[in-house]
């Protein structure tokens, strides 16, 4: 059963401006982790902002828990928890005070609120620092508290907007495990990221966004099938070297479906990496480029994105 239904949703920030979100449609089923994957500027955050009633759509409609985000904003807000991409904390208050305030704003009170606060402090591992002001916390601790606030009251739908940006590996692991625990707890999760690995690890289904459009939607297996049996060959060049010319030369080579270059790396979607490798190395040598590292990957979301857009996900 769908907890979120999105139909032809669109958002244009100004009358003459481009569409930040362009006729996006999808459903999120109860109890699943649904990821929106795409590079920065793809429209993921704008989509979440509309689903959380922060922004009014300029086209289309969306329902959360059966309530319209356009006309039943208050009902929608009661059923969601949102973890924004940017930290949204009172740094001069401590963790407990932050949790109490945001819990009260969600309508929680009394012993239920006290228990929820204790539970969240335990989950985040912040019990020992609960009385310290947030400005004394590390970046990872702040991220965890930011996440905990969004989960107060155990909302049926939790929206997490790039919650692992700029944090240490330990806190990242913490958050990813927590997201899985939410699903185990029966909650539905809408997760946005531009990290392919996170989407692969967490998601039941994935929507890939680019330039405001939803360009692919399905399970990981379904998406990978889109690129068939293609492999991904990644050639890392020497320090300071750029691979645009190499990608351009290889793009028309035999057995090479897509080629792109980014930040000293050339990524190729190929039928057989072993067959293409000698040609790629020869071209690199001819261009005077030093090859530092070569990696052959099984088909994954990276190759899907490359296949769909002609660009690497990091572009």
């Amino acid at each position, binding site marked *: 059963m769908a907890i979120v239904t999105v139909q032809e949703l669109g958002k244009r920030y100004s009358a003459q401006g481009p569409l930040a979100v362009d006729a996006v449609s999808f459903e999120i089923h109860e109890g699943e982790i649904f990821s929106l994957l795409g590079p920065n500027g793809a429209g993921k955050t704008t989509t979440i902002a509309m689903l*959380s*009633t*922060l*922004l009014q759509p300029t086209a289309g409609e969306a329902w959360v828990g059966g309530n319209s985000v356009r006309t039943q904003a*208050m009902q929608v*807000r*009661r059923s*969601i928890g*949102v973890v*924004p991409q*940017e*930290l*949204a*904390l*009172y*740094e*001069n*208050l401590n963790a407990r*005070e932050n949790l109490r*305030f*945001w819990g*009260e*704003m*969600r*309508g929680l*009170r009394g012993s239920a609120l006290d228990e929820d606060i204790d539970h969240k402090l335990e989950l985040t591992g912040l019990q020992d620092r609960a009385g310290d*002001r947030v400005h004394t916390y590390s970046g990872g601790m702040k991220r965890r508290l930011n996440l905990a*606030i969004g989960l107060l009251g155990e909302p049926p739908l939790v929206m997490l907007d790039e919650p692992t940006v700029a944090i240490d590996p330990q806190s990242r692991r913490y958050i990813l495990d927590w997201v899985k625990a939410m699903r185990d707890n029966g909650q539905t999760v809408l997760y946005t990221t531009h990290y392919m690995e996170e989407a692969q690890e967490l998601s039941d289904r994935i929507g890939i966004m680019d330039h405001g459009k939803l360009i692919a939607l399905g399970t990981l297996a379904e998406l990978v099938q889109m690129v068939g049996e293609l492999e991904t060959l990644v050639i890392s060049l020497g320090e300071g070297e750029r691979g645009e010319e190499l990608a351009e030369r290889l793009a028309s080579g035999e057995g090479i479906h897509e080629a792109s270059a980014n930040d000293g790396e050339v990524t190729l979607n190929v039928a057989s990496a072993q067959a293409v490798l000698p040609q790629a190395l020869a071209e690199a040598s001819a261009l005077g480029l030093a090859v530092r590292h070569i990696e052959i990957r099984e088909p994954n979301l990276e190759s899907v994105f490359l296949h769909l857009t002609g660009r690497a996900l990091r572009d």
Partner: protein
Amino acid sequence: MRKLLALIRNEFVREFDSPTSWVFFLLLPLVFTAAVGAGLGGAGGGTSEPQAFRTEIAVINEDAGALGEVLIESLRSHDLVPHLVSQWPEQGSALHIPPTFSEQLLGGETMSLEARILPVGTGPATEQMLRAAVGRLSGAVGVAQAVLADVRAAGLLALEQEADFVSQVLADTLDADVRPTVASELHWSGGVALGEASLVGATGTQQASAGQLVTWVQITLLGAAEVLVGERLMGTWKRMLITPTRRNTLLAGKLLARLGLGLAQMALLILGGIYLFGVNWGDNLGAVALVSLAFATATVSLGMLLATFMRTRSQANSTVVGLSMGMAALGGAWYPLEITPPLYQQIVRVLPSTWAMRAFTNLLARNADVLGVLPEVGVLFGFALLFVILGALRFQHID
């Protein structure tokens, strides 16, 4: 209601997150009250030395005889510039000469004149010059009466007509000689004295107490303009908007929190004025509370309206401080408006601070009750209503 209380508590807790908050909230306002109060002449009204300047005084001369004119001339000789008026003026120093002034004075009765003196600025000097001029006339009358008594005692005036003639000569002499010589050792039963001059404005300390209160509380209240910017920069504003809380509740919470902070600060500064500087805030605590509430409501509403225009913290900071200082200075918080030209006094009526100072001065100097401050309170609540409506309209469109 619980969300409203949560918003208010949150604002209070964050306002006093460090001890330095108290410096601006309480300590500096009290220090400035002491310093400015001393600069304006303290609590007294007549301790300053007369200064080498000429100052105006309104005179209501109703005297049927000639001595009223003599007194007016005597005022001129004491560096006062009298200008005749028919009734008590709204502002400034003034002297009333009653209809029976000459008759009573020449009849040997003791007279007491009524005067109103501005207790700050030129007021103390004016009062001294006025007392000197009245004293000179009183001395001259005393001399005349003494002479008449001596002549009678010597049996030189056998007939009633002779006595009347001498009295008339003395009166004519007084009328003609505007600078009679007075012997300091002379004593007389009758004469004229200046009654206790009633204050027409606040004393230096009262003016400073009310003025600094308005100045500093304005900073706190207009600080509402920084609230939204601060929340936006912290990311907490968006987070609030996606909680199941109505925008009007958010607006009311922020507004009431600032209002509470301002009222608390006012209460502390009023208590500080009473117990540290001996300021008498009058007998009508209800009126003081009403004026404080009206001023706080108007100013915090202006702050919320400004908040909808602010985009950066520095923009909000400079607006709050600049506007607070400007409105305080123009509205009479730093000096009595009575010493400014009438046109200026009309123009600055567009500021809430002007009405607040008028109301506070009424409470301090004239011990006004609720009815006495009702016009100012009404205007202040009118300002509040206007600002709230404009702010609420703009607030609906703030992301």
